[in-house]
């Protein structure tokens, strides 16, 4: 792969990860959000594969396959199962509405670019210049966690945080060693399974619920 194709395809895939994160803020139907997450998983896998082909690292290409299998196929399939109970489920009353959320996401992206120069100078080339995108995805994930109130959106927020961190890991170090990456991805999968079971129990106990209605425990 020539340097030119490498740089432009890497930029394309990393950009896709960020676009997906912003799209989560824009959408309110659970189904659409899950589809966006699947696309983000694919883009993340493509980033790993591109880097792996560029530096001829078989481990990284294997990581790409694992990432796609879990983040683009398995986890979205799991999330769809909870959605299937109520196909029209959507976030109706977010704490921050959609236009304001998009403005916040723009601010978060600027913040990510402004605050990560400590790292970008250590990593040469295209990958280095794209590191802030990973941090932006992470920050948008945090924002989803605090600004959306349906249980499933909290799971989505956690996954965005995780995807952002995985993207940073790919870009700054071409991925942590394969076995650790495998363990991390499996852990995320297990975590999602546990969260899904809890979300179903919440649904069973309370019906349609916003998380700020949980108020059994306080001091």
């Amino acid at each position: 792969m020539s340097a030119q194709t490498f740089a432009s395809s890497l930029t394309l895939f990393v950009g896709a990860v960020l676009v997906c994160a912003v799209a989560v803020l824009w959408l309110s139907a659970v189904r659409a959000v899950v589809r966006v997450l699947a696309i983000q998983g694919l883009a993340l896998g493509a980033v790993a594969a591109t880097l792996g082909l560029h530096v001829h690292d078989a481990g990284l290409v294997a990581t790409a396959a694992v990432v796609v299998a879990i983040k683009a196929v398995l986890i979205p399939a799991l999330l769809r199962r909870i959605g299937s109970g109520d196909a029209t489920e959507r976030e109706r009353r977010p704490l921050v509405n959609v236009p304001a959320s998009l403005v916040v996401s723009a601010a978060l992206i600027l913040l990510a670019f402004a605050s990560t120069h400590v790292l970008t100078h250590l990593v040469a080339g295209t990958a280095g210049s794209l590191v802030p995108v990973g941090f932006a995805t992470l920050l948008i994930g945090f924002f989803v966690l605090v600004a959306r109130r349906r249980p499933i959106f909290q799971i989505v927020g956690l996954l965005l945080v995780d995807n952002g961190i995985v993207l940073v890991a790919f870009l700054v170090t071409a991925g942590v060693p394969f076995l650790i990456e495998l363990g991390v991805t499996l852990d995320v999968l297990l975590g999602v399974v546990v969260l899904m079971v809890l979300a179903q129990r919440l649904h069973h106990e309370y019906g349609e619920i916003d998380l700020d209605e949980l108020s059994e425990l306080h001091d």
Partner: protein
Amino acid sequence: MLVVLILVLPAVGALVCAAARWRPWAAWTAVGTNAAMLALAIVLCVHVVRHGAFGGLFGVLRADALSAFMVVVIGAIAVLASWLGVRTIASELETGRCTERRATLYAVLVQVFVTTMVLAVLAANLGVLWLGVEATTVATTFLVGHHRTKASLEASWKYIVICSVGIALAFLGTVLVYLAAIHAGGHSAHALDWTSLMAHAHRLDPSVMRLAFALVVLGYGTKVGLVPMHSWLPDAHSQAPAPISALMSGVLLTVAFYAILRFKSICDLSVGVQFARTLLVIVALLSLAVAASLLLAQRDYKRMLAYSSIEHMGLIALGAAAGIPLAIAAVLLHILGHGLTKSVLFLTSGQISAAEGTSKIDGVQGLLARRPALGGVFGVGLLALLGFPPFSLFASELAMFRAEFQVGLGWAAAVAMVAMVVIFIAMANHAHLMLLGPGDVPRAEATPRFALAPLIGALAVCAAIGLFAWPLTSLLEAAARSVAL
């Protein structure tokens, strides 16, 4: 070989419990595997003190004095918690508050939980350490929600969401350390081994290490329950079954703190002492202040114990901030002492709430008159927790404060002492209400001696360590050397 065996034993317990479904003999087998693990951990301690650290399982595991010490703490509390767990679950089955399927799930997850903690402290590599700590979250979420009440469901949701965010930040910190190591010329396969990181720490980029350590304190600090990332802790501890609260408060918090200690020793060598010290002093004093203010008006005795854990984690963080060998040895002694007394108290409080049917402080009165054995253990446990001699918490707190003054953190120690006085008054007041007071209700059936025996034994060990620290001295010194300044 020894380290692999230690890791496999609790997992064997999990397999037995899974294969046998809920049977008392299977549960007792799990207690037995935990006891065997404790015995092997003591052998491991003797071995590393005599012959130094060694690795295992193709370099994935490594045991030095610090890891060996942590395995002993995990083993001791696992024995206590699983012993009392048999009785807790059996009585829940009798009264129909628990099905056989849930009892099996409980027994299996407890053993998985213990295994993941052992993996975390025996990991040779910061990545595997992260995997272990993350896996504890997955294993304990269902345990927190074991009672299937609305409140426990809420607690387990908060627990997994908040801790997953925290642990994700810790992973980002780990990735940044990896970046710094690769940049300093480390080989990718061993770049995350903490021995190689310690050896090359002076070459790591300081600005990246600062960012990484801040993320690690924020991330693992969430699992330690340090303020401001503590909000899951009182809910999870008050809703989980008593043996789970004992395991979480007694060891899980300090296993997460162990991770911070490992990163701190690398960070200190790379960016100097002051950075980590400032950060830890801030979270420590915040934790003490929040614990003191919320303990004053506390009305639930399980939440009282939970906030007291935040207090003690604050003290441990303050000790680690000092960083000299005396301070680290005191921190480790405090980890053991707090682990033992706090798990005894949580286990006793489980028996109290089962007998009295409430976890409100003013719902329990005259406990000492009505149930002398149970009330007595609870009272003695509280005395130990509040730092009365001869219990080891007295010795460790004293040593930590001495260390603070030696490194010029005397002001922080003074602030901590003020908070501790407030906490002392608050807890003594609550204990007075529960233990003394009018005992007009007729004397009810006492908890069997067999169930109280391990609790009394744990308190006796805690007192013995406070009186004669000699079996631990060389171990604590060796452990402190591996991470102290």
